């Protein structure tokens, strides 16, 4: 996977005195599904708008499919902006056919694909209604259909799930996953960490206009391991004392012990056997994306750290 769908190098963008994106590097390989994570106002949308050449960077370069995001390259992308960009007075189907035709589909093809998608997203009966008569959530689904209708190589989705109920979020998530299976590159921004955790292979964490971390989610988690294991068992807990581990914390039914390497894991397991307790769970703890984010974003974070665990990269 050497070919890149998107490459940002040293990208900086300011609006007046406010720096929205600062010295940003990011590579997105073809076929990857990447989550752009960060609190509101951290620069996610500005970055996406630069990738779509809606904004031009003050410094640095933006490459899309290996070159300047010109018209030809942009037309290979399905872009869903954060604001709900729809022609409110147009009928649902007509609007989709218009967008499809603009992107090179024939009228028939646009019509049949739009019909298919409307069916799939449960909007078939609304196809003759004006967009403004639809609820916000439905409008968002219509807009999403407009994004995928012409079967682009890449999807760039700015907060695609916000404002949707959980059922529709799941529907959309399933479609995004499916498009990924079909080999598309997907970049989406969200401030919902759990969602990104479910969906992404790669994440890029942004805070205060700067990149905090990026990379493969699994590797990231392994690297960010907090150096703790969770142990759950039935029986006397005095054996824990004999381990000589100072950091022991009771979390619900489990005990969290600090342990950083295989030797320590083995020691804990051996001690448990020796004590003859019935071991129910032994897990090397991995931090949630939220914890990783909070740890790295520092005081910029939305919430205070959830687990008081140290550890640097």
């Amino acid at each position, binding site marked *: 996977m050497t070919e890149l769908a998107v490459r940002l190098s040293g990208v900086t963008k300011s609006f007046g005195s406010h720096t929205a994106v600062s010295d940003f590097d990011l590579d997105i390989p073809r076929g990857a599904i990447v989550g752009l994570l960060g609190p509101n106002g951290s620069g996610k949308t500005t970055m996406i708008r630069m990738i*779509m050449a809606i*904004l031009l960077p003050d410094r640095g370069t933006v490459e899309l499919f290996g070159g300047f995001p010109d018209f030809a390259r*942009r037309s290979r992308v399905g872009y*869903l902006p954060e604001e709900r960009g729809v022609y409110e007075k147009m009928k649902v189907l007509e609007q989709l056919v218009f*967008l499809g035709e603009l992107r090179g589909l024939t009228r028939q093809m646009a019509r049949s694909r739009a019909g298919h998608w409307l069916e799939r997203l449960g909007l078939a009966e609304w196809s003759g209604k004006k967009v403004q008569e639809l609820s916000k959530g439905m409008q968002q689904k219509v807009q999403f259909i*407009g*994004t995928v209708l012409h079967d682009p190589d890449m999807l760039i989705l700015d907060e695609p799930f916000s404002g949707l109920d959980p059922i529709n979020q799941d529907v959309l998530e399933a479609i995004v996953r499916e498009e990924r299976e079909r080999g598309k590159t997907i970049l989406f921004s969200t401030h919902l960490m759990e969602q990104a955790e479910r969906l992404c292979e790669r994440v890029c964490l942004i805070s205060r206009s700067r990149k905090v971390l990026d990379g493969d989610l699994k590797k990231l988690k392994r690297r960010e391991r907090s150096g703790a294991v969770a142990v759950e068992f039935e029986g006397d807990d005095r054996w824990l004392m004999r381990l000589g581990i100072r950091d022991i914390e009771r979390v619900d039914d489990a005990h969290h012990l600090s342990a950083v390497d295989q030797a320590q894991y083995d020691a804990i397991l051996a001690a448990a056997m020796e004590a003859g307790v019935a071991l129910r769970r032994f897990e090397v703890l991995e931090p949630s994306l939220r914890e990783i984010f909070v740890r790295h974003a520092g005081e910029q974070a939305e919430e205070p750290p959830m687990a008081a665990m140290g550890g640097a990269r």
Partner: protein
Amino acid sequence: MRQVWIVLRREYLERVKTKGFILSTIAIPVLMLGMIGLSAFLGIQAERSQRELALVDYTGRIGDEVARRVQSYGYEMELVDRVVALDELDRRVLEDELEGYLVLDDLTLSEGVFAYRGKDSPSALRRALFESAVVETALELHLSTMESAGTVRALIEGGQLDYESVVESTGGEGAEVARIRGIATGFAGAFLLYLTMILYGQYVLRSVLDEKRNRVVEVVISSVTPWRLMLGKVLGVGSMGLTQVGIWAGSGAVLALFGIPFIAAQFPSTELGGFLQYLPGAGDIALLAVYFLLGYFLFAALFAAVGAMCSTEEDAQQAQFPLVMLLVVPFIMQMTTIEGGGFAWMDWVALFPYFSPVMMFPRAVAGAVPWWMVALSLVFMALALVGTAWVAGRIYRVGILMQGKRPTLRELVRWVRTA
């Protein structure tokens, strides 16, 4: 080109389908014609429904003829014997049997003075009709005793000024008709051009602004170049405009060709039939179409650029002010010289491309300027259109993706340079 066509079609269909379009297309002419028709109809009805009139003639020489004339205007008039007391007639007026009555006496014959007695004063129309009936009858009476009666009658009828135009190519018979036709066509055309350029220009502005405000443009622009989008939009609104003006012109032509002869046939006494000869010819209409197209594109491009540089309705209201002035100023100048003449320097002002539609078209059809000036104005407009489209396209391209504050003039210049 396909994309321009797709944008054009959307813009056109979305506009033509709106209630606003249907209303303004049908309602405006219907309303205007309806109001003219209704007021004429009501006026005639009001005159006709009036109660009977009476006439007392103490001279005993002109009563019959006056009554006949008044009757020929459509009133019922009873010639009352002069032995009937006026008290009796007053009583009939008070009891609403009579609307009123005329009293003629010697003073009528010598000075044309006569009286009308009634509860209400006669309408202006009625007053004029009575006066002409009485005065003409009295004149006839006097004339019949004179030798040179024919000459006097001809002179009294006012004579006639035969206008002989010295403008090239026209002249001879019908020159007066041509002159009036030129003025009328010029006035109507200038007004239509002014109205449509402002109206359709605003449509373009609104369309650009809406697309920018709801961010549709960000989606669309990834599939269409800004230039094609703007072109499609301007062409779409323009097509709608042509449809609307076409419907107006078509219904106007139908009305003129069938309606006017019909009405004229109903009222043979009027000279409505002669009105037809004042309607513009095909050449005038073709010239109007040329000015409309050039003028529309010239202003549509500007309005599109203004729409692109604004982010809110209020902004746009302010920013379009100079454009509106660019239309209002020539219109006012034109109104001060309706007959196409006036100050000679205005002929040169009319060459300014943004002023040409409103100022040069009426001059052209009135024959007030030489043909080469008309041609020159068209060339200037075409050149201005190329330049305007170039600048507007650049402003549009940067502007539609720019949110927030409206750019200053300096920033605009930079947009045009760097786009």
